[in-house]
């Protein structure tokens, strides 16, 4: 095993949503190169607790890269330097011994800081509640293959459905735009026959909900795609734009104008 590593951390500390925060500096030594970034923060917190200080609040859950809970901006990159990797799957061997690492929360008006590195991402939940679902009758389950889906469509829908809703797209975007998230959620259903009946109402309602939360607009830079731990493609943003245009111009007014418009 490689010897323990040394790091200087500059961590955003903020007592509560209304408090003024600042970057605090911590020195860490003897960190295993095989520790994940979150395990390294666990070591820091243990150290803080043992010296009677307040531990750093940060979000984590599965620590397997699939739940979308962890959310740190490391040295200015959402989820740190590795591609297609969430913060929890990033390991300290990725950094150099003695590195200084800036640890900041997602920054967006729509994602207010709750405490330290924890942000409130319920804006995403409200966008999903506005239309990110398929209405089905309860009762006996329909036959799985009663509607055939072309392989290429199901593949594209699966790619879009890989989104774990972590919000890295928003964090990385210079405009704090949620277009990649909404694009993925609209696409995964627009591509499948089960989602098709509600697709016009859905896209209009979800875009309206997105705008209400105060996310920015899309400059088509593709920073979001590069930051996404699930490598969701910006072609989903193009599909969202296409769906929006089609629903706005071509959908039957009553249907499109229901809850959405």
């Amino acid at each position, binding site marked *: 095993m490689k010897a323990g590593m040394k790091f200087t951390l*500059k961590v*955003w500390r903020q007592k509560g949503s209304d408090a003024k925060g600042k*970057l605090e500096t911590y020195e860490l030594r003897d960190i295993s190169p095989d520790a994940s970034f979150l395990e390294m923060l666990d070591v820091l917190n243990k150290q803080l607790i043992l010296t009677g200080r307040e531990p750093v609040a940060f979000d984590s859950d599965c620590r397997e890269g699939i739940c979308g809970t962890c959310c740190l*901006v490391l*040295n*200015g*990159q*959402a989820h740190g330097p590795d*591609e297609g990797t969430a913060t929890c799957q990033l390991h300290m061997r990725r950094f150099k011994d003695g590195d200084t690492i*800036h640890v*900041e929360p997602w*920054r*967006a*008006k*729509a994602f207010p800081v709750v405490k330290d590195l924890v942000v409130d991402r319920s804006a995403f939940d409200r966008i999903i509640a506005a239309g990110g679902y398929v209405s089905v009758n309860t009762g006996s389950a329909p036959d799985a293959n009663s509607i055939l889906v072309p392989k290429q469509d199901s593949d594209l829908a699966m790619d879009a459905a890989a989104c774990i809703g972590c919000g890295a797209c928003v964090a*990385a975007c*210079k*405009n*704090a*735009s949620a277009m990649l998230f909404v694009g993925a959620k609209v696409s995964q259903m627009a591509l499948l026959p089960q989602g098709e009946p509600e697709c016009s109402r859905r896209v*209009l309602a979800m*875009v*309206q909900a*997105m*705008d209400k939360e*105060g*996310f*920015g*607009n*899309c*400059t*088509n*830079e*593709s*920073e*979001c*795609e*590069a*930051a996404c731990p699930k490598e969701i493609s*910006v*072609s989903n*943003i*193009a*599909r*969202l*734009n*296409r*769906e*929006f*245009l*089609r629903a*706005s*111009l071509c959908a039957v*007014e009553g249907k*499109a*104008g229901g809850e959405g*418009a």
Partner: protein
Amino acid sequence: MSWLLATVSASIGKKQCMALSGLALCGFLVAHLSGNFLIFLGPEKFNAYAHFLESHPLLIPAEIGLAFLFLVHIGLAARVTRENWAARPHGYAVKATEGGRSLASGTMWLSGLITLVFLVLHLIHFKFVADDAKMDLHKLVVTTFHSLPYVVWYVFAVCVLGLHVGHGLKSAFRSLGLEHPKYTLALLWLSRLFGVAIAIGYASIPIWAYFFTRTLA
């Protein structure tokens, strides 16, 4: 009509209006440059073309249309940019690119603003001084470009414009939902090529005038 208002005031709708006006303005850039190239053919051809435009009955409607496109594009640019800035009230202490950003895409508001300043100065120098139909426009252009600072500024501004449309063209296609693996890559390169062509095309005239028309003036 409420659907129309809802469409153009949604985030995506605003960007789609910017994309449409931006694409139309790209068309204008090509048409304007094609006309300008007549300057290489000498004073008679260029002045004849200028006087043909000045006296054309459709000139005023065309100018109104063009002004409308600029107003839509600039008005929405101001709104969209303000919203984008407001969406992140607290910035990062350290920000690094993830790998998607280019110089052009990161500076669209700035390149747009420089283009606007350029546009206003351009109109002052070449349009509003030259309202006299009998004016020798060829001479006006050539002598204006004998000033080195002016040539430097002009070349700088059209390079910035090239940067703007170099990202803008492909961005506009995506804003309108036009994307498919079969042409996405081609569109990316077409867009970059267009930006370079616009910059070189527009820069060629002041550079030519500065270096090769001293004796004419």
